[in-house]
């Protein structure tokens, strides 16, 4: 199970965590999987994307030397500055430029350095990227656009290096929002996003860049979008989450099992369009659902899941839908441990829901 490999406590451990295991140089033909961390998996995905499609471009702030999280290491050296290049500090410009590049049939892989900085580009994403195909009657589209951004808490990020803005983008028909939970997922999902003929916003959990280590196949593979995955079977309550939060939820599931509560854990993977069928099937089995995300609870994506599930499974539900999320405050500085939806908060909510 991939999540077992995520080491270190959430707080109090610096990001200089484990180094990747296994430095043996395996041949690609042997189809070996190597244990690597999240940023290396992303790096591999980008490398494959650039290799397999000569019209793919990777650009953003500081990507040339490898990026602030090393996701783009070695790409500029390998593919040249014409395909992997730095942009000036202008998010709106980066995304707008990416839309234009994609509209000409290229695969534009834009990086926004931190999801917290994506807002100047919000207009471009919402008003231009998502509506391009629609308003031109399918004459034009910017499907080749993929926007990657690190999101989420990291223990000391404060107001502007910890935000989870996925909910804003889930409200926009025309784009897809994808969030991986681990290195193996990230590589497959990112390749799918890049090759998907729709604009995609791909949020990477920055906390996991070094901390998550997993066996990742070295070859080119894709994981399907809009398919949720049940990563833990259970019969008492369904837990839905994505990204880094899943490892916290899994810890809660393990503890709940000691109290005789068997939780089913679902990784949504794609937030829009999301896999309602899988979640519904699980809720029909368990009768209870709990959603957890780092973003503030009011208006978070958990609200959409909750409303949809209630619509579909009202008579089956044994308890109200629980949401264990970040608080309705700006992402705080010293108060981060209080703000976050921790394992104990989730455990409490699991028990409260099961005993409703």
């Amino acid at each position, binding site marked *: 199970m991939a999540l077992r490999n995520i080491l270190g406590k959430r707080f109090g451990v610096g990001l200089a965590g484990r180094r990747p295991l296994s430095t043996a140089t395996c041949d690609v033909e042997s189809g070996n999987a190597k244990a690597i961390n999240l940023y290396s998996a992303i790096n591999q995905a980008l490398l494959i994307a650039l290799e397999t499609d000569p019209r793919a471009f990777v650009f953003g*702030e*500081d990507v040339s*030397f490898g990026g602030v999280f090393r996701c783009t290491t070695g790409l500029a050296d390998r593919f040249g500055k014409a395909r992997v290049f*730095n942009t*000036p*500090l*202008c998010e*709106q*410009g980066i995304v707008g430029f990416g839309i234009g590049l994609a509209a000409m049939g290229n695969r534009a892989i834009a990086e926004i350095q931190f999801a*917290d*900085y994506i*807002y*100047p580009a919000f207009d471009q994403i919402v008003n231009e990227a998502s509506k391009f195909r629609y308003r031109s009657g399918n004459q034009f589209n910017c499907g080749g656009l993929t926007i990657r951004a690190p999101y989420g808490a990291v223990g*000391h*990020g*404060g*107001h*502007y*290096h910890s935000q989870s803005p996925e909910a804003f983008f889930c409200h926009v028909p025309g784009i897809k929002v994808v969030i991986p939970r681990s290195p193996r997922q990230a590589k497959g999902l990112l390749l799918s996003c890049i090759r998907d003929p729709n604009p995609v916003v791909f949020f990477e959990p920055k906390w996991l860049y070094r901390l998550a280590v997993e066996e990742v196949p070295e070859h080119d593979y894709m994981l399907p979008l809009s398919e949720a995955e049940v990563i833990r079977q259970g019969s008492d309550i369904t837990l839905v989450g994505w990204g880094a939060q899943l490892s916290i939820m899994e810890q809660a599931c393990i503890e709940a099992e000691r109290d005789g509560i068997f939780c089913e854990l679902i990784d949504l993977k794609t937030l829009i369009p999301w896999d309602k069928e899988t979640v519904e099937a699980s809720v029909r089995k368990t009768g209870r659902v709990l959603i957890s995300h780092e973003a503030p*609870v*009011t208006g978070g994506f958990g609200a959409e899941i909750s409303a949809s599930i209630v619509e579909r499974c009202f008579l089956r539900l044994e308890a109200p839908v*629980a*949401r*264990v999320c970040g*608080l*309705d*405050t*700006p992402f*705080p*500085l*010293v*108060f981060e441990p*209080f*703000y976050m*939806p921790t394992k104990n*908060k*989730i455990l*409490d*909510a699991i028990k*409260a829901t099961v005993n409703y």
Partner: protein
Amino acid sequence: MALSYLRSSSSRSANLLKPLSSSLPLRRHISTDTTPITVETSVPFTSHQCDAPSRSVETNPKELLTFFRDMALMRRMEIAADSLYKAKLIRGFCHLYDGQEAVAVGMEAAITKKDCIITSYRDHCTFIGRGGTLLEVFAELMGRQGGCSKGKGGSMHFYKKDSNFYGGHGIVGAQVPLGCGLAFAQKYSKDETVTFALYGDGAANQGQLFEALNISALWDLPAILVCENNHYGMGTAEWRAAKSPAYYKRGDYVPGLKVDGMDALAVKQACKFAKEHALKNGPIILEMDTYRYHGHSMSDPGSTYRTRDEITGVRQERDPIERIRKLILSHDLATEKELKDIEKEVRKEVDDTITQAKESPMPDPSELFTNVYAKGLGVESFGADRKELRASLP
């Protein structure tokens, strides 16, 4: 000034007076001596769409010694912050200003506390320049209650309302349109004040800057846009990010001035000139040619995108504190020992303040919910389980 001998138990402010036994009778009145001295700036100003001010700057011994002390304090403060960060007492992000002190200090010498300053996240020294205390700085950096933003802002968000310091901002370039808004309010109130909106060479490529410039020029706002050009936007050199790194010319129809940002007197002259200009003619851009010794932030070693030789070269040739030291010594305003004593004093002050700041308590957990909205709106904030935990925002 009283020439009394100081006892060690005297108050902190009294410690600022030099012990008489070490100074010659002629130097007795140095720290209040306002006899004018004229100094030439290191390089002439380069202007765009306006006449450059003169290279000759009026100053006096008091001002020069104040510059020296203030810059030494800022330098020591930043270095101490570096150590505290490495000791994990400061968490999160910490962007240090050492090397750029002349901009903060020179600007203050030309303006009043009624003028507004707004800047980016590299704001520790600007805050000190605006009258902030060392204790407020260190307490805020460590996230304590005694900090200027009550521990809720951290390194990037220092504010000081009573001296019109509208703070430190995390998002690059976002403070510039805000600064123009402040200038608009100042024009309305007709109180002969101006706003200095500071930003870096990285932010100079943000679209919102040009929007703000256009609006300021259209409505003749007393806004002075100051580009603190330390030549690197994080790790990207200016020539890689900007087609035209002549930031003072980027205003096109807005006049601009290029200033040696390592020369506190040049900065003072330029800011004085800019204030007069802005009050009469509307916006102006000042480009401060400066340099930061540290990397972009504490997680950046600062040596992967520039050579160590470059850094030491600037330190030797252009260091702002050394420049003022040489000026003071060449004009015979103080001895080397006296200057070294000031530095020692400053060092002690910083160390004592850090000890004091460490005593300051962390903010109460209930502060997580305060000041999200204005008081009295009674909005609820939901916690883990909406049935179990509920906090009312005050």
